[in-house]
């Protein structure tokens, strides 16, 4: 049945094999990073490398979180390839709505020092009214975009509580960004929010240099 995995799993005895499969299944399907104490195949570096090999078969890799937790995400080179494929990229409307959520729930609180530097998850919901006003999308289209983003795990809905009005925060998929992907997203947000800032100029210069270097290497 699962021939692709066989080459990687064959050398292991039954117990190890079950541990590898459990770790693989957990990082691929869990909502949040899973603690390595519960999964021997994530705790032991040699086994962890095999889990990584299993993930690599479909272009994925392990992402570490809080030092001792793990989840899976797309490898950077694979994500770059997929992003070139229009069928794999969310529509421009969905991306616009998601960007607004990231600005309100992450960028603004982070600039105010209320949110850590390297997280894309946030306890600060973006109110629906704000999304309505800023996107200028008809209500039906905004609702459809939010439905798709929720279904994809890119945003989560926060129900209105006694103190706040509720709204939308970045969804569980943001656990699955590699360090390089988190950095790139941070840069994109700076470019979007302050295109004329010195920081944006520095990012553009660095990217130009990198492209230049790559151009010379190939």
């Amino acid at each position, binding site marked *: 049945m699962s021939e692709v995995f066989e080459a990687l799993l064959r050398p292991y005895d039954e117990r190890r094999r079950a541990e*590898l499969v*459990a770790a693989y299944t957990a990082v691929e399907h869990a909502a949040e990073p899973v603690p390595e104490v519960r999964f021997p195949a994530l705790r032991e570096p040699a086994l962890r490398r095999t889990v990584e090999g299993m993930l690599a078969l479909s272009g994925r890799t392990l992402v570490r979180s809080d030092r001792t937790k793990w989840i899976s995400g797309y490898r950077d080179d694979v994500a770059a390839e997929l992003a070139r494929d229009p069928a794999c990229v969310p529509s421009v409307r969905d991306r616009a709505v998601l960007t607004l959520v990231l600005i309100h729930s992450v960028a603004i609180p982070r600039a105010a020092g209320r949110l850590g530097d390297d997280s894309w998850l946030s306890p600060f919901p973006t109110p629906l009214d704000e999304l309505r006003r800023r996107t200028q999308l008809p209500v039906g289209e905004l609702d459809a975009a939010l439905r798709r983003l929720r279904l994809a795990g890119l945003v989560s809905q926060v129900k209105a509580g006694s103190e706040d009005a509720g709204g939308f925060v970045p969804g569980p998929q943001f656990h699955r960004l590699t360090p390089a992907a988190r950095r790139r997203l941070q840069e994109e947000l700076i470019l979007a929010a302050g295109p004329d800032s010195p920081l944006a100029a520095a990012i553009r210069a660095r990217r130009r240099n990198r492209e230049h270097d790559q151009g010379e290497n190939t």
Partner: protein
Amino acid sequence: MSERPDEGGGVDPQVLARARARVLGVPSIDAAEPVPSGVRTASDGTRVWMLPEWPDGATPALLEEYDTAPMPLDRAGQARRVLAAALRCCWLRLDDAPWPGTPAPVGHVLEVYGGMTRGDADLARRWATGELRRLADTGWLLLDGDAGTVRPGPRTALWPEGSLASLRDLLRRLPHPPRPEEPGGE
């Protein structure tokens, strides 16, 4: 960018094909097209749906054994009930596998669902209609908007036979779907 400078287009095409299938959910191709290696497939004769290949038959249900929460689903209870109502209508030979099943009118599914819930019938129908669309978006059902019919989605082909017994019991206890309209019938 990755830790090592990437070589540009260096991704194995089979790996990329599996990654692409994952991004797209449960994509389908014409039955005549080649299928990348390392994916499972479900076919209804004309189209082939690409499904994830899991090692040693492990399913996401394994998360329960480890007290680990799966990806959250809005209104999960309602989604399950609407899926059950749909299966009641389009998985008619319960001794067989649910896939590929038989198309059933959406109206029948809404009627079965209505029989499972209490309260405002109109509201229940509206909720269930939205839920059918979400279940179709995620490959649990196939909706044919023009014909107004629904049938089991390719993901149901991933259910291991050993896990179907309790589902069959559950479906037998649900309200009967309305009889299919036969020529000269009701």
